[in-house]
């Protein structure tokens, strides 16, 4: 690892100021992706700005909204009683990320800001029509994810929390890589105030995306049968040593049917 200056600011304003003042500085959330990246010398920041002391951790449920602080870790999300009861798909998603030790450190905000094409949370955020709150604005999920490892965030902009409207039904199904636990294909289905939304992660070359054809089929009939005959084209899907694009296309159908069946039964 190349050396860097380490700073742990005590306020959000100070953290943003440090990032604004140094274009080579990088923010550190849980570090479960960023520290391995640093160890491989794939990134050489002048300074690492640790976000641990900004008070961005915690979960609040009020009315039909659950708000999750950006620095909340996966174990906290997976075991939170409000999330279990109101967004069970998000609870199971958090419990399947990495392993316990990774889940103790990794954060929702860090995962979203990184927008790894195989990360799980982008699918929940997009399917639930969640809103990303930052130090300066609110960004709708549909506008936030802009392609592989690319988001609407400015270089010095920090996620502070994520607001989930509580869906009527939700479920996540994931065909995971047995070594890394990342999604080879993950499908999050949510039936909520904004209708039915189906978000696919792990498969698209441009990262997470909505499956509009499935969404319209499910709008009139929320059952696995409604999407049984929908074929997903392999165009634009990832193919690698773990799974070909054609196999991922097939898995999207299988995982989506399982997710819908599970959500419908809840």
């Amino acid at each position, binding site marked *: 690892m190349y050396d860097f200056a380490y700073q742990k600011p005590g306020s959000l304003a100070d953290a943003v100021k440090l990032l604004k003042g140094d274009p080579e500085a990088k923010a550190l959330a849980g570090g479960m992706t960023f*520290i391995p990246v640093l160890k491989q010398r794939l990134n050489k920041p002048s300074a690492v700005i640790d976000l641990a002391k900004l008070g961005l951790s915690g979960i609040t449920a009020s009315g039909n909204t659950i708000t999750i602080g950006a620095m909340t870790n996966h174990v906290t999300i997976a075991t939170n009683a409000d999330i279990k009861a109101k967004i069970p798909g998000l609870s199971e998603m958090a419990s399947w990320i990495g392993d316990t*030790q990774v889940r103790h450190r990794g954060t929702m905000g860090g995962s979203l800001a990184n927008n790894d094409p195989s990360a799980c949370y982008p699918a929940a955020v997009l399917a639930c029509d969640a809103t990303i709150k930052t130090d300066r604005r609110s960004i709708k999920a549909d506008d936030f994810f802009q392609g592989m490892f690319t988001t609407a965030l400015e270089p010095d902009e920090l996620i502070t929390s994520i607001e989930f409207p509580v869906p009527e039904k939700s479920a996540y199904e994931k065909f995971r890589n047995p070594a890394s636990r990342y999604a080879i294909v993950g499908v999050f289905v949510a039936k909520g105030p904004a209708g039915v939304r189906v978000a696919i992660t792990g498969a698209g070359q441009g990262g997470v995306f909505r499956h509009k054809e499935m969404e319209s089929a499910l709008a009139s009939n929320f059952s696995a049968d409604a999407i049984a005959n929908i074929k997903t084209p392999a165009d634009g899907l990832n193919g690698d040593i773990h799974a070909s694009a054609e196999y991922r296309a097939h898995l999207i159908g299988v995982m989506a049917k399982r997710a819908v069946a599970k959500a419908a039964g809840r």
Partner: protein
Amino acid sequence: MPQVALTVNGKQHTVEVEGRTLLVELLREKLGLTGTHVGCDTSQCGACVVHVDGRSLKSCTMLALQADGCSVTTIEGLAKPDGTLHPMQEMFREHHALQCGFCTPGMVMSAIDLVQMHPEGLTEAEIREGLEGNLCRCTGYHNIVKAVAAAWPLMHGKPAPAAAAE
């Protein structure tokens, strides 16, 4: 050079480190606590698991400076000063849950956290899933799972729930 002040196994330390110094490097190289191992160095194998403020994590994927103000427990901090082993260590010995021993420190630290996180009891399947972040290349895990199940009643001071005993 920046300083990190932390408690390790009940003892206060203030140590000069670089920004890039990992927690496991601080433990092994600065404090001489070589019980915590480095296996894969890519947060997969779990040989480096320690507890920070009571929670298990991979010390090869945490900066030493992130642990400033924290309380760290390593495998060296488990036994009592008179040498009495922690119940998890004792059960690993009792059930022959190790062969070469390289994964054992991390395995024991993860197992203790797992048992503490499940006061309601643990099924065999939950133990296997709970230890997915720790790799053992000798034992096939079978005796490790037995040891963890046997440590549960000792750590909680009551018999394991019938449904969880399997």
